[in-house]
């Protein structure tokens, strides 16, 4: 795996499907802080999985006018079913074709065929303010994200 992108690096541009017939490009969010939450797969079996936790914290992220994007290699229909089941109120992007291409550009793709549990907070110019890769089985929580957003707001 190439090395995970670190603070200070420009965030690679991408366009990914957010629903079966809609795409979202990172550049559309220029001017706002962006949280990229790469995660291995939908349907994690644990209670309080990472995406459900972020869903609860969403109002705090919004106080910083930050946009949260979840990204995994799952397909759009899988994401749609997962988002509906967990009542997620933020977009899940499909890094599906070529598989894991965006995760590779950020240096967070695993040879097993899915991405790391990796977080990036981008400033309003699309520069990485903070990045963190969690052990795959450990939900990293949101503390680091909020600290980074606080620094950007300062």
């Amino acid at each position: 795996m190439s090395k995970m992108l670190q603070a200070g690096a420009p965030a690679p541009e991408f366009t990914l499907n957010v629903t079966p017939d809609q795409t979202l490009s990172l550049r559309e969010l220029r001017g706002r802080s962006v949280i990229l939450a790469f995660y291995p797969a939908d349907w994690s079996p644990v209670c309080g999985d990472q995406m459900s936790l972020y869903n609860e914290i969403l109002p705090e992220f919004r106080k910083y006018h930050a946009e949260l994007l979840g990204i995994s290699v799952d397909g759009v229909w899988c994401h749609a079913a997962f988002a509906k089941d967990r009542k997620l109120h933020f977009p899940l992007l499909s890094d599906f074709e070529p598989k894991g291409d965006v995760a590779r550009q950020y240096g967070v793709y695993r040879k097993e065929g899915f991405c790391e549990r990796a977080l990036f907070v981008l400033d309003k110019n699309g520069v990485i303010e903070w990045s963190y890769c969690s052990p795959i089985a450990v939900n990293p929580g949101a503390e680091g994200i909020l600290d980074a957003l606080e620094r950007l707001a300062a």
Partner: protein
Amino acid sequence: MTILKVPVNPSDHAQGSEDAPLTLLEYGDYECPYCGLAYPIVKALQSHFGERLRFAFRNFPLTQIHPHAESAAETAEFAIAHERFWEMHDGLYENQQYLGEPLYERLAVQLRLSVRDLRAALTAGTFAPRVRADFLSGVRSGVNGTPTFFINNKRHDARFDYDDLVAALEAEYLRQAA
């Protein structure tokens, strides 16, 4: 190591002495099945450690996946106003599969609390800010799911079965005594 940002203080719901050498804090959700599993374990720890242990509980409801978690948390907070928090807390966990207003009202009657006041508090969201404050303190302390335990302000990252928690608490006790 993840450290608790807001130490257990007098505004917390706690059982046991402030001077106890061990404080176990749980961030929990009344509807979370894993918290339901942890409930009798905490009781067993309390009887094992006796006066050496203080136990505190803070709310961490995952309201989008657990539709009753918020109302249950607010019901328990309502009971604190009448000093019945722990009875309500226990009643909610012991009847976890029945969470909902009929259960809350039945428990209120058993605890001689006003059902009308409870309904009014739930409708008005009187205790919602308290529940949210607990939740946010947890987020800032690295709570990443439920239940999350802290032993003397340090997050317990191992499993939460009885033997693991006894071992972790005993180890902390020895550290304190040394």
